[in-house]
């Protein structure tokens, strides 16, 4: 009996030892050299593997940064939107480079065609896919540029940062948005755009992407941009351009002075996270209702339009 135990122990022990030695030599012989910095950089990254940097996964981004740092001594064009400036600083430190801080961005939904503003004219039945509905017809409210509300953007988001508001039928972007760009890609109508977050999260943008003339645009949606040009005229900083009956505010030039918001006749331009204005003197013709975070809304438009969209 004892013999068997001793022999088994020795035999298995010897096998194990031989295997270990073989493995050691093989591992060394076939080792692939990798810049150790890649591992360090990868450690510093958020490991979300979201692709927001444009690379397939955090490891690929780490490899790209290490390569670029070695060959070109800068990290131009490489930015991790999820980690933001903090992480890029760490990466810069690891690679021994100075990194310029970038303005943080956020996804902005540029459509306010809620059920109240753009009343439902037909009922849609079919696949729950914005891409499909976009190819099928214009939309339940009639505007062929407006949000379809079927949630391709919500499905695309890997950070749980965008949700559909069932009351309005529009998506709402939360503060934890990392500006990775997945929802921008997913939207078949290019309604979502990555814009600067702005100081104190204050932003101004045109919440409409309708390129039709004013009359048909307004027929389908009460708060459409009709391309009247008032905002362009009033902007002192040349931040607003009108193309195809649609105004666009360049966020690099915009100083958040809010003059355009005041003059827009359809309330298509939004100001977000500003303090409420002081009420105007009695000379004003139309009554205005001041809401806590956004522009005053004319009472006669309809009551449902206090802009719940917090972004």
């Amino acid at each position, binding site marked *: 009996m004892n013999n068997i135990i001793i022999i088994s122990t020795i035999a298995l022990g010897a096998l194990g030892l031989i295997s270990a030695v073989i493995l050691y030599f093989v591992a060394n012989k076939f080792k692939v050299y990798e810049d150790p910095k890649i591992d360090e950089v990868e450690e510093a990254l958020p490991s979300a593997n979201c692709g927001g940097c444009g690379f397939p996964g955090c490891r690929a981004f780490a490899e790209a940064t290490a390569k670029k740092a070695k060959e070109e001594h800068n990290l131009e064009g490489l930015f991790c939107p999820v980690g933001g400036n903090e992480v890029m600083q760490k990466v810069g430190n690891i690679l021994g480079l100075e990194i310029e801080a970038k303005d943080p961005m956020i996804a902005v939904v540029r459509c306010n065609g809620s059920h109240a503003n753009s009343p439902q004219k*037909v009922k849609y039945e*079919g696949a729950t896919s914005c891409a499909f509905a976009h190819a099928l017809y214009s939309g339940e409210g009639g505007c062929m540029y407006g949000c379809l509300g079927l949630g391709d953007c919500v499905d695309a988001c890997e950070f749980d940062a965008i949700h559909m508001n069932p009351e309005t039928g529009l998506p709402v972007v939360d503060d934890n948005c990392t500006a990775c760009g997945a929802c921008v890609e997913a939207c078949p109508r290019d309604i979502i755009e990555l814009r600067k977050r702005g100081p104190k999260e204050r932003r101004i943008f045109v919440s409409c992407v309708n390129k039709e003339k004013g009359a048909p645009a307004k027929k389908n949606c009460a708060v459409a941009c009709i391309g009247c040009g008032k905002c362009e005229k009033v902007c002192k900083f040349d931040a607003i351009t009108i193309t195809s009956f649609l105004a666009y505010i360049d966020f690099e030039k915009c100083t958040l002075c809010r003059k355009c918001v005041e003059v827009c006749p359809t309330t298509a331009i939004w100001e977000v996270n500003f303090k409420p204005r002081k009420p105007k003197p009695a000379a004003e013709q139309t009554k205005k209702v001041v809401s806590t975070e956004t522009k005053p809304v004319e009472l006669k438009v309809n009551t449902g339009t206090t802009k719940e969209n917090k972004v």
Partner: protein
Amino acid sequence: MLTVSGSPHIHGDNSTKKIMYGVVYALIPAMLVTVYFFGFNAIRVLTLSVVFSLLFEWIIQKYLIKGDITITDGSALVTGILLAFNVPSNLPAWIIIIGALVAIGVGKMSFGGLGKNIFNPALVARVFLLISFPVEMTSWPKPAPIINGLTDVITGPTPLGIVKEGLDAGKTMSDLMPQLPDYVQSLLGQMGGSMGEVSAIALILGGIFMLWKKIISWEIPVSVLLTVFVFSGILWLIDPQHYADPLFHLLTGGLMLGAIFMATDMVTSPMTKGGQLIFGFGIGLLTILIRIWGAYPEGVSFAILLMNSAVPLINRGFKPKRFGAKANVQNR
């Protein structure tokens, strides 16, 4: 308000419910036979199995998944009946309940619910019970028509069991013949076995009903039965004393039930006719291998489960004939 949707704007008569309940109707002849032969016990087992299958599905859908409750679509009902058909009629209640839990919880829900399971849920439960409770699962009551009165249940081995033990002990087929049921008895169901497998006629009737209603197609049952027939026939022709004849193999054990109701389960069988023929062939072959050379007297359950695992591969290899693909030689 008008509705806008993509075409087509009309729909045929098919529905999942119709298919599932069609299977239930096809099982009615077998249910009647089993009640006739196994009496009150049969009703007990059927009721427990069905009720608990539905109950477990409801509990899992309501409290674990927190999604839609779909117990009325008929699929849990079918699983419950088929599970009952796979066990002996004297099985204790608590074992049946465990079986229902395994069938629905492990065999169906853990894969994602209806349509997502790889293995036939009733068979998963049967094999689980067989391995966990080998004694209870292999004491087969002899069929005693209820018209003879509710006597105590007498148990004994199934015909396949008799053959396996007998041949292993060195006896020949002629020695064993007196103990085995004749063909008429096998067809009608007067033999030992699990509740659903005894009566070939009742099962065949159900199969014809399902073929008529286009719930199943002929490829799987025919290829399973034909393969078993051919292989067992070859062996029997070589040595009739040590191999049972092909008709015996067809009519005994769970082969009829397996070929007509278990292997044809849509979720776990291949999608194309070519794939289904290979699937049936594989089941038949494995059944014979297990019956003749394996440790168990009956191999259909294992054969079906093994072939279930091969179905994704079969689907990849067997594609439908494409229109306009004459230039392509392969199936892919």
